[in-house]
């Protein structure tokens, strides 16, 4: 007797849950019906991401590092499923290793980027990095998994929350990754994944006044212009990069002064 497999319904990942698009729309990609997020889905996701910033940024860096390491553990456990949705086993392994690498940065980046400044006066002065806030990520079209992981991991390591527009052509790896995140102690709302049409969603992400930074898959004059409305930091995906400076792109530096005296 043949068993009929239970097929997955591909949905969005917003606020730790997997809703359909409020628009009820889907589009076909990778031979599946994929939720086609709307502008309203995007705005909901931004609102939820904003709400999640205090908890994620407020965690100790050690704790955030452990949660990201847990993400790597869960990816490893789902390695064969992920491998089917991207370039294969090697891409999965590199993605897992990349998450582990960034997990280790959470409690080290502050000492690399910040420190005490030897000002010419009787003041104690120090600089420390802080998360920028809500980051909009337009994921690279491919590689499906490593591309997304390479952009998302540094954003999270820095303590930001994210609204991701997944690869339009290869959205299933992003949804699989969302299922990993949902089971990895990453608080709901810290990562929100929208599937749909890049050209429909990205302009709304770029112009949204409560998005603080934008990570783009490529130079795009229209999106960059929209980003200027609230002086967003605009970052361009730099290929297969693994660098602490990918984290610092989404950090603000705060400098605090205090007089020294008796």
């Amino acid at each position, binding site marked *: 007797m043949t068993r009929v497999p239970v097929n997955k319904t591909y949905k969005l990942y917003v606020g730790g849950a997997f809703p359909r698009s409020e628009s009820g729309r889907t589009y076909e990609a990778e031979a599946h019906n994929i939720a086609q997020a709307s502008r309203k889905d995007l705005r909901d996701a931004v609102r939820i991401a904003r709400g999640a910033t205090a908890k994620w940024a407020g965690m100790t860096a050690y704790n955030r590092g452990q949660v990201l390491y847990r993400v790597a553990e869960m990816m490893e456990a789902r390695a064969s499923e992920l491998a089917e949705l991207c370039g294969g086993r090697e891409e999965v392994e590199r993605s897992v290793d990349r998450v582990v690498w960034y997990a280790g940065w959470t409690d080290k980046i502050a000492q690399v980027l910040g420190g005490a400044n030897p000002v010419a006066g009787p003041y104690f002065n120090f600089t420390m990095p802080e998360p920028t806030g809500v980051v909009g990520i337009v994921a690279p079209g491919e590689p499906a998994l490593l591309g997304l992981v390479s952009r998302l991991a540094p954003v999270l390591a820095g303590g930001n929350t994210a609204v991701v527009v997944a690869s339009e052509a290869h959205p299933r790896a992003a949804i699989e990754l969302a299922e990993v995140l949902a089971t990895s102690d990453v608080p709901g709302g810290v990562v929100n994944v929208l599937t749909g049409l890049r050209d429909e969603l990205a302009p709304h992400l770029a112009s949204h006044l409560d998005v603080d930074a934008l990570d783009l898959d490529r130079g795009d004059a229209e999106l960059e212009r929209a980003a200027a409305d609230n002086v967003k930091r605009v970052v361009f995906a730099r290929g297969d990069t693994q660098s602490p400076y990918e984290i610092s792109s989404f950090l603000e530096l705060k400098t605090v002064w*205090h007089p020294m005296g008796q």
Partner: protein
Amino acid sequence: MTEELAFRGFEYAPAPESRSIVRLEDAYGLFVGGRWREPAETYTTISPASEEPLAQVGQAGPEDVGAAVAAAREAFAGQWSALRPAERAKYLYRIARLLQERAREFAVLESLNGGKPIKESRDVDLPLAAAHFFYYAGWADKLEYAFPNRRPRPIGVAGQIIPWNFPLLMLAWKIAPALAAGNTVVLKPAETTPLTALLFCDVLRQAELPRGVVNIVTGDGRTGAALVSHPDVDKIAFTGSTEVGKAIQRELAGTGKGLTLELGGKAANIVFDDAPLDQAVEGIVNGIFFNQGHVCCAGSRLLVQESIQQPLIDKLKRRLGTLRVGDPLDKNTDVGAINSAAQLQRIEELVAAGEQEGAEIYQPPCRLPEQGYWFAPTVFTNVAQSHRIAQEEIFGPVLSALTFRTPEEAVEKANNTAYGLSAGVWTEKGSRILWTAQRLRAGVVWANTFNRFDPTSPFGGYKESGFGREGGLHGLEPYLRFDGDATEWGG
């Protein structure tokens, strides 16, 4: 009233700094490729304290800007990028020393052309400008240690646009890191304050800086726009209003050019009930009346804990009565002239809006000079967060006072702005300082002090106050590209 009179009872004899140390030309050209270039158009630059014309200055057009960019490109491609970094450093050290040697001359000219009190240009602007060059000089041959594993390289030609509030200091903040990183620059001073930048060209001559490494084009916003849109400029650094900053960000969209923005602010200065009140009053006064409040990081919103509002405001009003407003070149002057007629009009408009919206205005009795642009130190109380004077940057000697009850409310109100440049905290409790500083969304937090600057200390904004930092090794990063960062997928 009698108390007020008692405080105002002291008469100060005039103590003017002599102008004779400054020799002004009748007319200045544009500094392009190490030579003075005749501008097609000129305008008159004045002293805002007297409206006296000081000199004719060039209004650089697109062709002039093009010539300056070409000179910068040639210098970059030629000897400047080939120079050993240690030698590059020595030019910057020379500039620092020359500024120290000629500090008095620059300070007088800065006050003359910009209206700021001589004690500020003498004790703040000039020492800090020289210090910036001295600090960044030392970085020129140490960049690999600042950015390990990144293989730092200069970007090329930097276009730099600076404001009128700290003309020479902003020039130093821009030029010193750019040159230390190995770039060449085209700098546009503010329309109303070109003279110290033009005098700086003489320092470059004395330093024997290779021709074309620094080019200075004066003019209004049209000159800045020509520089921003010039295709051969690799990076733009802008300090000025958020409105213009956004326009520049839009203009550069899709070009791949580097950009750093240091924009406006509406800083909260938070005073908790345990703060040392007399020190806090001095800090509030320094925060908003330093440089006539023409300071992007000015503490323009006073947030005072409700229980100490009355004594604090009383002390503050009394202190206002002792501020001496007048001749910028007088060594006793605390508050100088408003920089321009246009800025005075902007301040007057916002102050009128404050009164219309129901805030209570206080200005100490003070005689303002007949000629020139002046505005009395002003404090608004009974201000609501929705008032324009609580939301918009006034960029003048006008303080808006609001109250709060709990630390949480103070932080929420402090952050209730699109800006995020700076903030102040006054309390004797160390843990509360750190708690508050951590929650303030601002790039610089002064605790129990205000308006301190240092070349080693990164400065710059969160949110709509811009991005990028000036000062410290962080200030070098926007002037470098990193060959070590670039990789291809699967590489």
